[in-house]
C-alpha cells in the first residue's frame, strides 16, 4: 500500500525496548514538588511500569497575518518520567518532523534529582537524519537524534519544540494515549474570532478527554485534556492503534479576511476541491505512447471488461511499485506518460496510468482517494486530509457501476479488491464540481476460501499422503506472492510456512502450483508429504490425530482482551482428511461431531467412516471480519472449541 501523508500530528507515545520514540511539545514546568515526592506518587500510581509520560502538551495557535496569510504555530512539550533503576536505555531518543513543518526551536533536557531538587541538564548535540519507512524508497520525514543526559530513576526527560506551518489544510491530530501510560495530555487551540474550526474525537475512552472553551478578547481557546493509565498497544489480530487510542482531529474550516470568507477545509466538498486541485493538470491529454500500449494489449478484445482486465493486469505486472514521499510530490500523481516511460511509480502513479490507458481505449475511468484500513476514519463522519493515504483508479463498467482497480497489488484480478481497502469509503473524482462517495464492498466469506484436502495412510508407523490446497480471494493473493519470489525447486521448502501441518517435522516431498499468471482461477498447490513421529504406536495400536491441519490453533485471545479482533476478510477454511485404513484393522470409536454456532462464527468438524477410510471434514466460517465487545468472547470461545476438537485421536488396532 502506498502513502500520502496528511497530518500534523503528535505520534502516539511509543516505547520500545531500546528507544523512546516520541514527538514535540512545549509547556512551563508544572511540578514544583520535590523529586522524592514525585517519584513516590508516580510509583504508587503506576505499579509495574518502567516509565510513563508525565505530561504531553501541545499549544496550537492559528493566526491570520496582516497581509492575509495563514500561520499555524505549535508549541510542544513532553516529559517522560523514569520509574526504575538501570534506565540508561532511555537515553537515546529521536524527534520526528514532517517536511511541511518548519522547526523554529528544539530543546531537550533532563531534570535530574540531585539532593532532592531537580537539576536541569541540557542536550547540546542533535543529529539530523532521514528515515525510510517500511517499503518506502524515499521519505521526506526527518528526525533529530539525541541522547538525554543523566537518565536515572526519578529523572524527567523533557523535549520541547516550536514549529510552524503556513498550510492550513493539514489537520491537527493529537493523541491522548500511547503504549505507555499518560499522566496528563493536553491540547489547546487558540484562534481569532474570524476563524471557523471543526473537530472530532476518535478512538475509545473518549469520554476521559474533557473539552472546554474560553475566550479572551477576540481570541478563542479550545482545550482538550485527558489522561490514560492504560497503554494503547495493538494486539494480535487487532486493528491499528488509531482505532482505539483516543485522539482528536481538528480542521480549520475557513476564515474571514477583509470581509471575505475564505474556505479551507470544512466539508467533504472542500476536501474534494483540495484533492481535485492535485490532479487537474494530470493527463489532460492522452499521450500517443499510452494509447499505443493500451491499444496493443487490448487488440482483438471485444468486451470492455476484457479490455480493462488486460490493462489492469498489465499495469500491475509491468509498473513496479516504488513509494516516494517527497513534499507535494507525495500528493500529485505523475503524468501517465512518465510513469509508462519509467515503468515504476507509487499508488498515484499507477492510478494515473490506469485511468489514462482505460480512457485511451474509449472507456470511462477516474481517480479515487481512499484511506486504507489502517485509518479508522470515514469521509462522511469528518472529512479531513488525514482520512486518505492511498489512491486507486475506478473503471465504470458496462452498467456504469464503479469497479475498483488498485494498481499496487500484483495478485488481485479484476473485481477482487485488496482487503486493505475493503469496507472503506472512497472519493471518486467526476470533474471539478462533482464527485461520488462510494463505499468499497467487503468481500464475502465464500469469496475467500482456503481448502486443504489430504489423503493419508500409515505405513510402518509413518504417516504419509498427498494433498491439494486451493485458495480464492485474499488468501489466494497472499499465497501466490510467496511463490513468485522463488525458484520452483524451492517450493517444497516454503510449504511448511504456507500450509503448516500439525508437526514441524512435516516433510514435503513434491509441490506443484497452478499458473502464477492466471489470477482469474483459484490458486492450487498439489503436494506429497510425510509426517514422521506423528503416529504413536503401542501394542499393535496406532493413535492418530487426523487434524493434520489445525487452522488458528496458535491464535489466543487474552482473558482481558478489549481491543477488537480484526481479520483480513471474512473467510471459509475447509480441511478434509481421508485416512486409508489397512485391511484387518479395527477402527476405534470415532470422535463425536463438534459444532460451534454463534452469530457470524461457525465451526463444524465431523468424522465419518466409509469403507476402508475414515474421513474428517472440518470447516470454519467467519461471516464478519471485525469482532468487538461481546463478540470478542465469542471469538475466544470458538478458539477454545476448535482446540478441543483438534485434540482428538482415533485408535487403529491391528488384528
Amino acid at each position, binding site marked *: 500500500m502506498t502513502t500520502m501523508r496528511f497530518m500534523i500530528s503528535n505520534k502516539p507515545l511509543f516505547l520500545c525496548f531500546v528507544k523512546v520514540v516520541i514527538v514535540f511539545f512545549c509547556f512551563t514546568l508544572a511540578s514544583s514538588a520535590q523529586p522524592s515526592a514525585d517519584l513516590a506518587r508516580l510509583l504508587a500510581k503506576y*505499579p*509495574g511500569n*518502567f*516509565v510513563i509520560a508525565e505530561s504531553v502538551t501541545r499549544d496550537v495557535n492559528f493566526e491570520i497575518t496582516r497581509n492575509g496569510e495563514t500561520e499555524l504555530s505549535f508549541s510542544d512539550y513532553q516529559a517522560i518520567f523514569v520509574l*526504575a533503576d*538501570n534506565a*540508561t*536505555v*532511555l*537515553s*537515546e531518543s529521536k524527534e520526528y518532523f514532517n517536511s511541511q513543518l518548519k522547526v523554529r526551536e528544539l530543546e531537550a533536557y533532563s531534570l535530574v534529582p540531585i539532593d532532592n531538587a531537580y537539576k536541569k*541538564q541540557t542536550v*547540546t548535540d542533535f*543529529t539530523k*537524519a*532521514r*528515515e*525510510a519507512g517500511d517499503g518506502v*524508497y*524515499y521519505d521526506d520525514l526527518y528526525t533529530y*537524534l539525541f*541522547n*538525554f*543526559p*543523566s*537518565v536515572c530513576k526519578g529523572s524527567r526527560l523533557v523535549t520541547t519544540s516550536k514549529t510552524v506551518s503556513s498550510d492550513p489544510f493539514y489537520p491537527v491530530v493529537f493523541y491522548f494515549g500511547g503504549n*505507555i501510560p499518560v499522566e496528563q495530555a493536553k491540547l489547546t487551540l487558540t484562534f481569532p474570532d474570524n476563524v471557523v474550526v471543526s473537530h472530532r474525537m476518535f478512538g475509545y475512552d473518549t469520554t476521559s478527554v474533557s473539552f472546554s472553551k474560553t475566550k479572551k478578547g477576540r481570541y478563542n481557546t479550545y482545550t482538550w485534556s485527558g489522561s490514560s493509565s492504560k*497503554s494503547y498497544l495493538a494486539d494480535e489480530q487487532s486493528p491499528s492503534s488509531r482505532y482505539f487510542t483516543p485522539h482528536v482531529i481538528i480542521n480549520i474550516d475557513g476564515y474571514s479576511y477583509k470581509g471575505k470568507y475564505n474556505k479551507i477545509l470544512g466539508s467533504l466538498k472542500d476536501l474534494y476541491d483540495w484533492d481535485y486541485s492535485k490532479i487537474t493538470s494530470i493527463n489532460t491529454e492522452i499521450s500517443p505512447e499510452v494509447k499505443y500500449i493500451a491499444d496493443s494489449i487490448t487488440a482483438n478484445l471485444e468486451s470492455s471488461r476484457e479490455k480493462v482486465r488486460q490493462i489492469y493486469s498489465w499495469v500491475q*505486472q*509491468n509498473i*513496479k*511499485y*516504488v513509494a516516494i514521499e517527497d513534499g507535494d510530490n507525495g500528493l500529485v500523481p505523475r503524468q501517465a506518460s512518465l510513469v509508462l*516511460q*519509467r*515503468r*515504476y511509480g507509487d499508488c498515484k502513479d499507477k492510478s494515473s496510468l490506469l485511468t489514462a490507458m482505460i480512457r485511451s481505449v474509449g472507456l470511462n475511468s477516474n481517480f479515487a482517494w481512499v484511506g486504507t484500513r489502517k485509518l479508522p476514519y470515514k469521509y462522511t463522519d469528518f472529512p479531513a486530509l488525514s482520512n486518505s493515504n492511498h489512491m486507486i483508479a475506478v473503471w465504470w463498467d458496462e452498467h456504469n457501476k464503479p469497479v475498483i482497480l488498485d494498481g499496487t497489488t500484483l495478485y488481485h484480478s479484476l473485481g477482487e479488491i485488496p482487503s486493505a481497502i475493503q469496507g472503506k469509503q472512497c472519493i471518486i473524482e467526476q470533474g471539478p464540481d462533482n464527485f461520488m462517495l462510494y463505499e468499497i464492498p467487503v468481500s464475502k466469506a465464500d469469496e475467500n476460501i482456503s481448502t486443504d484436502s489430504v489423503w493419508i495412510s500409515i505405513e510402518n508407523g509413518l504417516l504419509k499422503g498427498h494433498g491439494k490446497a486451493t485458495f480464492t480471494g485474499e488468501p489466494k493473493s497472499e499465497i501466490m506472492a510467496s511463490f*513468485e*519470489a*522463488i*525458484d520452483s525447486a524451492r517450493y517444497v*521448502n516454503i510449504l511448511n510456512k504456507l500450509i503448516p501441518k500439525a508437526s*514441524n*517435522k512435516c*516433510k514435503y516431498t513434491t509441490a506443484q502450483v497452478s499458473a502464477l499468471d492466471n489470477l482469474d482461477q483459484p490458486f492450487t498447490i498439489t503436494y506429497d508429504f510425510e509426517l514422521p*513421529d*506423528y503416529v*504413536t504406536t*503401542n501394542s499393535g495400536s496406532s*493413535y492418530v490425530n487426523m487434524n493434520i491441519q489445525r487452522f488458528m*490453533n496458535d491464535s489466543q485471545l487474552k482473558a482481558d482482551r478489549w481491543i477488537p479482533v480484526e481479520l483480513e476478510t471474512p473467510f471459509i477454511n475447509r480441511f478434509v482428511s481421508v485416512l486409508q485404513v489397512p485391511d484387518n484393522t479395527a477402527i*476405534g*470409536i470415532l*470422535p463425536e461431531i463438534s459444532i460451534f454456532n454463534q452469530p457470524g462464527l461457525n465451526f463444524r468438524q465431523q468424522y465419518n467412516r466409509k469403507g476402508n477410510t475414515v474421513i474428517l471434514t472440518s470447516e470454519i466460517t467467519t461471516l464478519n471480519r471485525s469482532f468487538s465487545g461481546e463478540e470478542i468472547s465469542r471469538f475466544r470461545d470458538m478458539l477454545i472449541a476448535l*482446540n*478441543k476438537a483438534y*485434540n*482428538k*485421536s*482415533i485408535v487403529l488396532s491391528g488384528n
Partner: protein
Amino acid sequence: MKRLLTITLILLSAGLLAQSEYETYAWNTVPPRNQTDTIKSVDGTVVLLERRITEVYVSPNDILEEIFVFHKKIKVESHQAVNEQNKIYIPVHNVIDFIKIEARFISPGGKISNLKAESIKEVENLENKGNFRTFVIEGAEVGGQIEYFYILRKKLNPYGSVYIQEDVPKGDVQVIYAYPSKLGFLIKSYNGFPDFVLSSDDKGKNYLKSNAGYIPSLRTEAYAYYKANLMRYEFTLAYNNYVSSLRQYSWSKACSNLYPNLIVLKKNEESAVRSWIKKLNIPERDLSTKVRYIENRIKSEISISEDMNQDLDLAEIIKLKQSGKHDALRLLLAILQAENIRFEIVLTSDMEVQPFDPEFNCFNFLDTYLVHIPEINAYIAPSDPLYRMGIIPSICQGEFALFMHPISYNEELNTLAYDIRQIPSATCYENTDTMFQVINVDFDQAELKVKSRRAFYGDVARNFQSFWHYTDDKRKAEILPLMFNMGSENTHINSYSVINEKPENIGLNPIIWDLDITASALVENAGDDIVVKIGETIGTQSELYQATTRKLPIKIDVLRNYYRNIVFNIPAGYKVANPTDLNMHVEMLNNGKTSCIFTSESKIVGNQLIIISKEYYSESEYPVSRYEEFRSVINAAADYNKKTLILKKI
C-alpha cells in the same frame, strides 16, 4: 574504534601527478573477462558483471586520493527480482566529487532506457549512516538487465573489507587496485575468492587484480556465521614511501595511536575521575568484586550510545552520565588505573562477520574492545550495557585478538605493548538451563497443570538479566508464555516468581524462575485412552528438519547445557502404556569423546513417571562434513517434542 586509528595522510613531497586511467571510465572501457550467459539465476536474479576499480593517486594538494569505479549488471527474471534490484543507493561518505553516475535498463528485446540525471536524488544522513545518492532504474521489466556504473573521486580509504558473495549468483567479478609504485597495498582474499595478482607497468604504476568467472549464491543457514563465510577481501595500505619506509597501518602503529587516545588523561579529566571514584565508594574487597562494582556503576548510571557523535571529555561524561562507546572504555581504564588495577586492552573483530586473521597485520580487525584483567583472568565488554564481567560476548569467544598493555620506558616514552592471543571460550556447563517440573493431568479441563522451576546460568541467564528490569508488567506477561511455552499452543502462566533478574547478576548468579503453568492443548482423547503430549512440556526445541544440501560449516554461538527433570504424576485409575517410548540417546562423537548429545530416560516409581533428559553441546565448530551427525542431535531434542504418553484405564 576505527576513527581513533585513522590518520590523514599528508605527503611531504609529491610524486609526479599522473593522469587518471579510470576517471573517464565508460560502459565498455574494460572488456568483460568472463562468459556469463550460462549462469543460472537464483530466485530470478543473476549478476552478470560486477567490477570495482580503485585507482590511488597523489592530488595536486599532495594528498592521497582515489578514483573509485563501481560497475554492475544484473539480469532480473521475476517481479520480485526487479523490485529488489531496481533501487540503487550510493554512499557519499568520503566522496570529494561525483564524476559520473550512469544507469540503464536493457529490455529483453534490446531496447535501452537511460537514467536521466535529474532522477538522481540526494538523501541526507539516511538512517544516521551518512549521505547517499539514490535512483530508481527506469523502464525495468522482467527478463531484462539493470546496468549502472559510477565514478567517484574520494579521499583515500586506506584499509577495509569488501564482501563479494551474496545470496545471488555472480559471473565476471573483477577487482582492480591501481596505485603509484611508491605505495604498497596488501590484499588478502578469503573463503575462496581468487588471490590478487601484482603487476607493474613502465610508468611507475602497480596493479593488484583479482577476477572470478563465477561466484555461487550463498544463503543463510541455521547454526552458521553467514557473513564470515562469504567470499571477501581485506585490503590495507602497507607502505607509503612518499613519507617513510616503515610499515603503515600495523598493529604496532595501532598501539602508538591508541596510547594517547585511551590512556593519557587531561588534568581536568584526572580530577573528575578522582572525585567520582570517591563518590563511588568502591568496596575494599577482593579484586573481582571491586572490578564488577566499578563496571556495574558505570553501566547502570552512564548511558553508552553508539549514536553519540559528540566527543566529550571524561569530566563531562561523569557530569552528564552519557558517553559514546570508546569513551566508556576510556572511563573504565581511567578508574582501573586510578585504582592500580592491572589491565590489558583487547581489540578484536566480530567473528560473525569478519574473523580476526592473526596472520594479517593490519587495522582491519580492530573493531571490538574488551578489557582483560589478568590477575583474575576475567574479561569485560566495556561499552556493552547488556554484559557484565564473567560473560564474554559470543562474537569474541575463541577469537584471536590484539592484547595491549601500557608500558613505560621513561617518563617521556610511554606506549602500549602488544601480543596476539586467543580470547577464551566458555564451556557449555557455564551456560546451563535446568528444569525441574512436576506435571498433573486435569481431566475435567483436559489440561496439564505444571509446576516448573527453571534456573538459567551464564549467557542463558544474561539474555533475561539484561532487559527484564526495564520491561513493564504488561510486556512481561506477553513474553513469559513465549519463553516457557509448552508447544506453540495455549500455554498460560498462572503465576510466577523470579530472583536474580537484575543486570548486576549477569555472569555471577543464575536467574531462577518458579512458574505455575497450565498447558491446555496437550491432552487428547482417543476413545477410552488418553494421549498426553508430554514431549511438548520441555518447550519447542530448535530443529534442522529441512533436508537441504548444507553449505556452511557449523557454528554454535553459545555452547549450552540442559538438564531436565520431569515428574509426571500418573492419574489414579490409569497406567502409562508406553514409558519406554521416551527413552532416547543420540550422540555425536569427536575424537572418541562426546561432542554433543541428547538423552532422555524414563522410569516409573510408584505412581510417578520420572523423566531425566540431558543435552549439551561442547564444541562450537564442525566442518560441513559433520553436519548430518550434528543435525541428528539437534533434531533429537525436537523429536522429543513429538513424544506422547498413552494413558490406559487400569
